[in-house]
Each structure stands twice: as structure tokens, then as C-alpha cells.
């Protein structure tokens, strides 16, 4: 029989799901999500934990003595937010070590997910622009085309954030951002007289390539989570398809 201070299994399951969906939406792989949920549940006194981590839902089955509880929670849009994931993992670690209690963990995860610190938008746009310019250089972009690519990718990132804040369909955002970034980069290269028009348009759209999802896909497959891996692969393929539509439209208009 559980002590009166011990949290209910339903409460533990809700905390596990909150931590799990925050991690999955922050770009964690399936193994990290499952292990974090198990650490949380064992740390809070469960005797048996089973986790089923899918692309759009997580199911947890908890047992404590004769009690058992099964709970399912939805997962939102997958993105990458490493700071958000780190906050949740810190709480999981503290619970596993027994340095904080259920109520504190619940408050910390809620506070963390409500107000995760982010970089200012101008800095994110600048960094994205430089990253795509650097990617371009790695692919053989000439120096004259470097600045237009940085500008196109930076403005593309600003457009992506603006459109996502207005809850526009994710795939439409991908096509729009791809088209805009490629047009700005390609137009700039045309004005300056750079020699890598096609490469510039491709480089400026690389901010949309879901790199962590591509890598997590293979990691999840190796970890024995084929459903999650296939769902990730399908989503990656869709993103590349919509990205290419915008890119081709821009290249046709620019004559690349």
C-alpha cells in the first residue's frame, strides 16, 4: 500500500507524458524519451514501466505493487529546441537521484515548457544566414554569392517564424520560405554577377532541411523503433518535396 505522501499513478503518468512530449517536440530521439520516462517513473516509486513512443503519441503503462495505470498523450509538431530538452532532462536527473520531489518536478517542467529562454529573432536570423552561407562555401559557392545567400537564408528564417506564429500550415510555410530565400539569394547573385546562381538558390534553402530529424530517423531504426523511424522518414521526405517545389519555382523565374 502506498504512503499518503506518494503521488498517484495518474499524476506520475501525466508528468511522464509531459516530459516525454516536451522532449520529442524538442528534437530528442526515441531512446532519450523512453529512458527519461522510465527514470522519472522509477524515481517516483513505480515498480514496472513500459513506454511506447510514437511520432504523434506516447503511451505509458505504470505499475506500483498491485496498482497499475495506462495513459496516452498526444505529441505536437516536432521541432528542435535543445534548451527545452535540457531543462526537462535536468528535472529527470534530479528525480532519479532523489534530490527533488514530485510537486517540485511538476512545477519545474511546467515552468520550463511555458517559458523556455530563446535567442532574439535578429540573432537567430543572422546565425541562420551565416550557417547557410557557410554550407554554401562547403559546397563550392563563390565568395561573391556568399552575402546574397546569407541574406536570403536570414530573411527566410524571419519569414518562417512569422508564418508559423500565424499558425499557417507547416508544409505551405516550407514552400513559401524556400521560394523566398531562393529568390532573394538568386536575385542577389544576379545583381552582383556571381557565378553560382543555382548553388546559391539551393544553399539559401538549407535552413529547411530537417537535419536532426534525418539523423534521429536512423538512430530510432537502430534502436528497434521502426514505427517512429518510418514516420520521421516520411515527414522528412515531405519536407524535402515541398522545399523543392519552392526552389524549382524560384529557379524557373530566375532562369537558373
Amino acid at each position, binding site marked *: 500500500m502506498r504512503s499518503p505522501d506518494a503521488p498517484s499513478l495518474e499524476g506520475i503518468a501525466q508528468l511522464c507524458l509531459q516530459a516525454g512530449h516536451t522532449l520529442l517536440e524538442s528534437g530528442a530521439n526515441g531512446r532519450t524519451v523512453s529512458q527519461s520516462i522510465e527514470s522519472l517513473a522509477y524515481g517516483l516509486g513505480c515498480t514496472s514501466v513500459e513506454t511506447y513512443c510514437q511520432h504523434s503519441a506516447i503511451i505509458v503503462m505504470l505499475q506500483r505493487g498491485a496498482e497499475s495505470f495506462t495513459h496516452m498523450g498526444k505529441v505536437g509538431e516536432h521541432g528542435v*529546441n535543445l534548451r527545452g530538452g535540457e531543462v526537462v532532462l535536468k528535472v529527470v536527473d534530479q528525480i532519479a537521484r532523489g534530490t527533488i520531489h514530485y510537486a517540485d518536478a511538476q512545477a519545474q517542467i511546467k515552468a520550463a515548457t511555458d517559458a523556455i529562454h530563446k535567442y532574439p529573432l535578429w540573432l537567430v536570423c543572422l546565425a541562420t544566414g551565416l550557417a547557410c552561407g557557410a554550407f554554401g562555401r562547403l559546397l563550392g559557392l563563390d565568395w561573391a554569392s556568399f552575402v546574397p545567400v546569407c541574406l536570403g537564408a536570414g530573411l527566410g528564417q524571419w519569414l518562417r517564424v512569422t508564418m508559423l506564429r500565424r499558425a499557417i500550415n507547416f508544409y505551405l510555410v516550407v514552400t513559401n520560405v524556400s521560394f523566398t530565400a531562393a529568390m532573394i539569394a538568386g536575385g542577389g547573385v544576379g545583381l552582383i554577377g556571381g557565378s553560382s546562381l543555382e548553388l546559391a538558390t539551393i544553399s539559401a534553402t538549407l535552413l529547411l532541411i530537417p537535419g536532426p530529424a534525418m539523423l534521429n530517423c536512423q538512430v530510432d531504426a537502430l534502436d528497434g523503433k521502426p514505427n517512429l523511424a518510418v514516420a520521421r522518414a516520411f515527414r522528412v521526405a515531405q519536407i524535402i518535396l515541398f522545399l523543392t517545389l519552392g526552389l524549382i519555382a524560384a529557379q524557373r523565374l530566375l532562369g537558373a
Partner: protein
Amino acid sequence: MDLAHFIHQALFGGVAAAGFGILFNCPRRMIILCFAAGALALATRTIGTDAVDLSLPEASFIAALVVAIVDRAWWQHGHAFQGSVLAVVGCIPLVPGSLAARGVEELFAITRESASKELTSASTILEILALAAITLASIGTALAIPMLISPPKRKKS
């Protein structure tokens, strides 16, 4: 191997990784580590392709494995809280995103080709997409290897 090219690749690999680190909302203290991880990844890949004459998937596999091992060692010594983050961000410059986009572009272009050119285009598409897929699988596998060999200990009651 051309030293200037080697430094160029490492430098821009680092810039790309650090830039994507900020885009992925990486903690501020880790941005410099992201730069180092990206530079290490591209330096290793450049040595692989230019000095050892490896193919892109082979060189990418070794580069990702080196970054993943360094990240795992760093994590086990308690310096990094969130293991594998650094390895993933460091390997972002290795991801053949441009190849994948180019492959799909060629796929669309095939609809405009004349019948005589279709076969050549199809083989080009297959080659590009296969290279992108194998490179990606190589990087993902290399990233997972240290974690599969030495998984973190689980705490059970």
C-alpha cells in the same frame, strides 16, 4: 592534401554548426562547443576524402563516429548534461541536404526530358538519391554506435 582547403572546410563546418546551434536554441555555453564539433567533423571528413581517398559516405561515417565518440567521452565525464546533442549539431554540416534537394529537383526535371534522355536522367537521379541516402544512413549509424556499445545506466527501484 591542400592545407588551405582543409582549414577552409573546418572553419566553415564550425560556422555552419554554430549557426545551426543558435537556430536549434542550444544553450549559450555550448555554442563554442558546437563550432568545435562542426570543425572536427568537417576536418575529419576532408582528411577522409582528400588524403585517404574515401567516398563521401565512408568519410562521413568516420567523421560522425569521431564526433560521437568525443561527445560520449565528454558526457561520461560529466561535462555535458545532454549527451548526443553536441554530436547531432556537430554532424549537421555533414548532412547531404543539398544532394537530397538536388535529387528531387532532377526528379521533377525528368518530366520535361525527351524520351531519349529519360534513361540518363533516371540513372543520375538514382545515383544522387542513393548517395544522399547512404551518406545519411552512415552518419546516423555512426552517431548511434557509442550509445549502443556503452548505453547509459538505468536506475530501477
